[in-house]
């Protein structure tokens, strides 16, 4: 029962390409949406459950991507090994950073994570010998899963969908574990959680590392799927987008974060037709959603639906 939502989601993901074969929105946009789902679900563990904002998550996404890109394209390492290195680097950095950075709160935490994201971005642009600088790195080979080359949009859709479902499944289980309960206590009141004997520093460190690992994993997949990485894909704006996805999803809901990721990806794909007006509309929508539905798009919609349902029932009784 706990995983009922998960199964519904999984069936929808499998049915989409069957119902709409060769549809640009399903395969191409779907791949981007799937990667965003992994990122948002990971960030949601930190933001939604532990209540810690991160405006620098693009950095961990970038670490995974660049580790895979550099090691496979330049040194011809096997893809899984490169991905493992990316995960290790992102996890280690997150672990080192977690204690000092998660002691901060509110705007200080926002500033610190933002600064971290910018520093990593500057390194991507400047360390030209390794990263190729602003032009980025090309020639990243496609994934090859035990002799099954992932070389078409549909195959990539399958791989990314499977990865996104795995991320959701992991997140759902993590939240219901002992760690998850400790995190929710930290979100409620860090002080009270401490009084109950929860090592809050440790709990926050663990979730920071886990959410960095989610991001680095998505980064590795992204690098292989695009065949190309450049610093633009990991800029401050990307980190802001990720936070927006989680908040749109209403925070503290794995499916909310997943839906927020999908909604924002579709929005971007749709806004492209407005060309020069894209930025203006994007900004206006962000403001409008936060002003009128501070509990997130899905929180707002589901509350509206509940109210409507109650009103209808009352109407029926009379």
């Amino acid at each position, binding site marked *: 029962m706990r995983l009922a939502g998960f199964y519904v989601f999984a069936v929808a993901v499998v049915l989409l390409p069957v119902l709409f074969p060769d549809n640009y929105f399903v395969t191409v946009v779907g791949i981007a949406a799937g990667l965003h789902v992994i990122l948002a679900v990971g960030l949601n563990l930190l*933001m939604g459950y532990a209540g810690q*904002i991160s*405006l620098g998550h693009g950095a961990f996404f970038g670490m995974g991507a660049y580790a895979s890109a550099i090691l496979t394209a330049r040194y011809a390492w096997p893809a899984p090994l490169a991905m493992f290195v990316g995960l290790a680097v992102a996890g280690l950095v997150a672990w080192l950073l977690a204690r*000092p*950075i998660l*002691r*901060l*709160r*509110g*705007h*200080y935490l*926002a*500033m*610190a994570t*933002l*600064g*971290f994201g*910018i*520093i990593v971005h*500057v*390194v991507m*642009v*400047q360390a030209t010998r390794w990263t190729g600088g602003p032009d980025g790195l090309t020639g990243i080979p496609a994934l090859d899963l035990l002799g099954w080359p992932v070389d078409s949009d549909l195959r990539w859709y399958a791989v990314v969908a499977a990865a996104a479902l795995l991320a959701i499944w992991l997140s759902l289980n993590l939240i219901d574990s002992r760690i998850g309960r400790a995190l929710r206590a930290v979100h409620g*009141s860090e*002080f009270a959680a401490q009084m109950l004997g929860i090592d809050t520093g440790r709990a926050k460190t663990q979730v920071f590392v886990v959410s960095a690992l989610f991001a680095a994993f998505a980064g590795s997949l992204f690098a292989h799927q695009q065949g190309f990485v450049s610093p633009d894909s990991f800029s*401050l704006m990307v980190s*802001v987008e990720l*936070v*927006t996805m989680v*908040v749109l999803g209403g*925070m503290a809901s794995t499916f909310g974060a997943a839906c927020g990721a999908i909604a924002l990806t579709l929005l971007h794909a749709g806004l492209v037709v407005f060309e*020069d*007006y*894209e*930025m*203006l*509309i*994007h*900004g*206006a*929508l*962000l*403001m409008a959603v*936060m*002003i009128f539905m*501070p509990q997130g798009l899905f929180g707002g919609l589901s509350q509206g639906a509940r109210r409507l349902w109650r009103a209808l029932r009352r109407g029926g009784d009379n």
Partner: protein
Amino acid sequence: MLDQLFQFLVTGITIGSTYALVGLGFALIYNASDVVNFAQGEFVMLGAMTAIALLAAGLPLPLAAIGATLIAVLVGLLLERFAIEPALGASVVATIIITIGAAIFLRGIAMLLWGKDFHSLPAFSGDTPIRLGGATLLPQSLWVLGVTVALVALVRFFLDRTLLGKALLACSFNRAAAQLVGIDVRAMLRLAYGLSAGLGALAGILVAPITFSSYEAGVMLGLKGFSAAIVGGIGNPMGAVAGGLSLGVLESLGAGLISSGYKDAIAFLFVLMVLFFEPTGLFGHKTAERV
């Protein structure tokens, strides 16, 4: 070597003055509303770009500067009225996203109006550099420094000596209490947004002849201003000024002595170190957190 150091110092103080003005705006808004306004850098950009446009439309420079500042103040007031006031009392994350949305929105408008090219403003009093020992100083740097000093002094006088300024500060200490003694908290909120938009716009106009401007120019300036406010202890106006100057000098020394490509990384590394070791800022008050 000493001449070179002096040169870096002069450059650093010039650019640091801009950060100081932006940071001052951050501090004023934070005091009045507990909101960190991520659209602060966009006021800087709007000031510079509007002044450039008004000048191109045939207005003399002083009028263009005044007009641009007034337009930025108007935008600041509109932002407060239509984006901040409806969301009073929202969570920190929600207000961060609202102001980031506002920043993207303003950037979008600027891009439609002025395209993606870089524009520049002519220097206020010529480009002939002034020699100071072995270092050179652009006349525009003197304008930046002079106006910054004057503005900071004015803000200081306003906060310390006028009733309106004291009312604004009272809101930052305790909003409910301020309301109880008859201060119109909403009006103070508008005042803070108008004032900090004006300060930002003036900073943008002053520095536009040195750095050029484009629709995206506000992003980094805004973040540096935010850093200045954080380094100075958020909500402490004079701390923000000190924070801005130290950030500018550090960045300029880093660019000159280490690597110019890494100057932004050096600036933010400094901010991170301050946050890790002195989380309330270098010039902030120590406060205990209420549970």
